[in-house]
C-alpha cells in the first residue's frame, strides 16, 4: 500500500465515522434519557431526507434544507412523543414494538405522498478538493464538520445549560430528579423532539451522497442501533464507537470485500458486548 492509498483510507475512515456519528446521535440521546430504543429513528431519517427533497423542489438553497429537515423531524417527534411514546415509558419492550410499527406507518405515508420511486437531491457542495495531493470529495469532508457541530452543540447543551443539567439529572436518577422538582415529563418531551430532529437533520445530510426513497432509513437504523448499544448513554463513547467500528468497516471493505464490510459493525458490536457488556461506556 502506498502513501496515497493510506491517505485515502484515512480520509474514508474519518468521514465514515463522522456520518455514523451524525446518524446515531439522535438515537443515543433518546436512549440515554428515556431508556427506550426509538425504532422509528430510521423513519425520521427518511422524513428529514424528504424535507430536504421538498426544499430543493421549492427551489430553496440546499443549505436551507438542513434546518427544515431538523424542524420536520422535531415536529413529528413531538407529536409522536405526545400520542404514542408517553404512555409506554414504563414498558420499554412495548415501546420498541410501537416505534417499530410507527416507523412502518411513516414509511407508508411517505410512499403515499411522494411515491415509491427513488428521488434525488442536489448537493450543496460538489466536486473535490486537494488533501495533501489527493483529490477528495468536498461534501464528505463537510460531513466531518457537520458531525463536529452536532456533537459539539450537543455537548454544550448537556454541559452548559439548565436544560442539560436537568437532563443529566434525569439520566442519572429519575426519581431523585423528580423529587428535586425537575419536570421529567418535560425533559423527555424535549429530548424526544430533539432526538427526532437530529435524525431528520442526519437524513438531509446523507441524501447528497445517496438517494431518497421510502426505505432509505432502515440500513442506517441498524448501524445506529448497534453503535448506541455499545455506547450506552455517552456521547464520547459514541464517538469512539463510530471511529473504531466505522474504521473497521472501511478497512475490511477496502482490504477484503465490501460484502464482509457490511457485516463488520454488527458482528464487532455483538462480540464487543459479549466480552465487555458495557461496551465503550465507562
Amino acid at each position, binding site marked *: 500500500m502506498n502513501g496515497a*492509498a493510506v491517505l485515502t483510507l484515512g480520509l*474514508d475512515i474519518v468521514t465514515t465515522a463522522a456520518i455514523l456519528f451524525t446518524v446515531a446521535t439522535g438515537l443515543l440521546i433518546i436512549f440515554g434519557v428515556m431508556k427506550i430504543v426509538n425504532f422509528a429513528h430510521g423513519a425520521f431519517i427518511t422524513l428529514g431526507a424528504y424535507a430536504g427533497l421538498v426544499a430543493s423542489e421549492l427551489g430553496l438553497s440546499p443549505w436551507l434544507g438542513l434546518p427544515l429537515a431538523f424542524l420536520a423531524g422535531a415536529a413529528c417527534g413531538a407529536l409522536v412523543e405526545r400520542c404514542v411514546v408517553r404512555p409506554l415509558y414504563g414498558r420499554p419492550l412495548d415501546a420498541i414494538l410501537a416505534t417499530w410499527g410507527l416507523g412502518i406507518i411513516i414509511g407508508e405515508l411517505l410512499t403515499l405522498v411522494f411515491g*415509491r420511486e427513488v428521488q434525488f437531491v442536489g448537493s450543496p457542495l460538489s466536486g473535490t478538493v486537494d488533501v495533501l495531493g489527493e483529490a477528495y*470529495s468536498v461534501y464528505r469532508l463537510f460531513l466531518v464538520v457537520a458531525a463536529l457541530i452536532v456533537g459539539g452543540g450537543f455537548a454544550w447543551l448537556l454541559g452548559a445549560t439548565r436544560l442539560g443539567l436537568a437532563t443529566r439529572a434525569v439520566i442519572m436518577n429519575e426519581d431523585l430528579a423528580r423529587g428535586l422538582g425537575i419536570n421529567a415529563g418535560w425533559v423527555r418531551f424535549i429530548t424526544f423532539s430533539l432526538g427526532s430532529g437530529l435524525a431528520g437533520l442526519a437524513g438531509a445530510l446523507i441524501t447528497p451522497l*445517496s438517494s431518497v426513497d421510502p426505505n*432509505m432509513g432502515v440500513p442506517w437504523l441498524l448501524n445506529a442501533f448497534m453503535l448506541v448499544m455499545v455506547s450506552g448513554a455517552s456521547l464520547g463513547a459514541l464517538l469512539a464507537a463510530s471511529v473504531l467500528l466505522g474504521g473497521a468497516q472501511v478497512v475490511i471493505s477496502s482490504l477484503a470485500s465490501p460484502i464482509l464490510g457490511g457485516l463488520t459493525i454488527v458482528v464487532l458490536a455483538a462480540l464487543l458486548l459479549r466480552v465487555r457488556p458495557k461496551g465503550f461506556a465507562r
Partner: protein
Amino acid sequence: MSAFRQLLALSSAMMLAAPAYAADPITIGIPVGLSGSNSVVAPSVVQAAQLAVDEINTKGGVLGRKLALEIADDASGAIGAQRAFDSLLFQKKVDVLISMETSAARNAGLPAVNKSKTPYIYTSFYEGKSCSPNMFVDAWVPAQQVPPIVDQFMTANKAKTFFMIGSDYSFGRGMLSFTKEYIEKKGGKVVGDEYLPMDGTDWTPIISKLRASGADALITSTAGGAPNVTLTKQLRAAGVTIPYGNLAVDEGTAKGMGADATGIYISASYVTGIDSPENKAFLAAMAAKFGADLKTPNDLSVPEYEAVYLYKAAVEKAGSLDKAKILAQLGRVSFKGPRGVVTMDKQHHASLTMYLGQVQADGSVKVAKSFPNVDPGAQCPKL
C-alpha cells in the same frame, strides 16, 4: 390514480369477455408486477399493451376477433407469480401470456405455462438462457447489451483497462462476468471487480479502490433504483471522470439524476430518441391515448407493445387459435416496430438493433451509435 385506471382497464376487459358468442375476444394475459419492485415500471408496460390492443381492434382485430387484456398482479415475485399465472391460465383460460417480469416471477410461472402449453412471450431483458418450448423472448440478453459499450470504450476512448462495480445479486454478477469475458476476448484487461450488498449505499471503499487501480474505463451493473443512484452520485462527488458505462440505468432514472448522470453511456434496445417513423408514430399515439397520464415508454414497455403485434402476426399466419400452430409460427414472424424489425428466430430469442446512448446535460439520452442485428448468441441450443 393508476390503481383506479387499472381497475377500469380490468373491468372493461371483463365486460368485453362477458358475452359468450361465436366471436369471443382473444384474451391476452398480462401477469405483471403492479406492486413490489416492478411497480414503478409496470404501469408503462400495461399502457403499451393497451395501445397495441386498441390499434389492432380499431383495424378489425385478429382473424375477425377482438383482442382483450386480462391483467394480474404478480407482486414482482415468485409466490405472486404462481398465483397470477394459475389464475390467468386455468381460470381465465387466456390464449396467450405477454409480459415483462422479474426473473424470479418468470421462473415460478413457467411450470404452469408448460403444463397448459400456452404461448408465452417474455418481454423483459434478462440474464439469458431461460428455455421453454412455450416461451419466446423479444428483449435483450447480456450478449446483446454489453458489446456496444465495451466496443465504444476500446475504440473511441482507447481504453485498455476496465474496472467493474456491481450489486451482489445474480443479475449484477451475471452481467459483469459476461462483461469480463467479453473484455478479455477483445484483448482488454479487467483490473478490478467489486460488489456491494443490494441494500448497501456506501460505495466509498470501492470508489477508493477504483481510483487506486488507475483503470481507463468503468462499467457498472447495480440493482435498479437506489444503489444505482448512490453509486453514481458518490462517483461524481469523488471526481471520477473516466468513461462510465452503466448497464442498469434507464432513461427515466438518468433524467432524475440530473447533472450527475451527464456523460454516462447506456446500451438499450429502445430509447425514446430513436429517429425512425415507426418510433415517432408510436410516441405520438401513446401521447394521444394517455395524455397527462402517459408513463414514458421505455426498454421494458416497448417490447410489450411489439410482442402483441408479433402474436397477432403468428395467429394470422397459423390461421387459427390452435396453440401448437401459433407456437410454430412465433419464431418465424416479424414485426417492424419502434425498435426496428424484430423476429424471435434465434432459439426463441431475437436479434435486435442495440442503441448506444449517452446522457446529455439536460438529462435526455442521445443515440451515439446504433448496432443493427446484434445476435443473442446460443441461448437455447436444445430448442
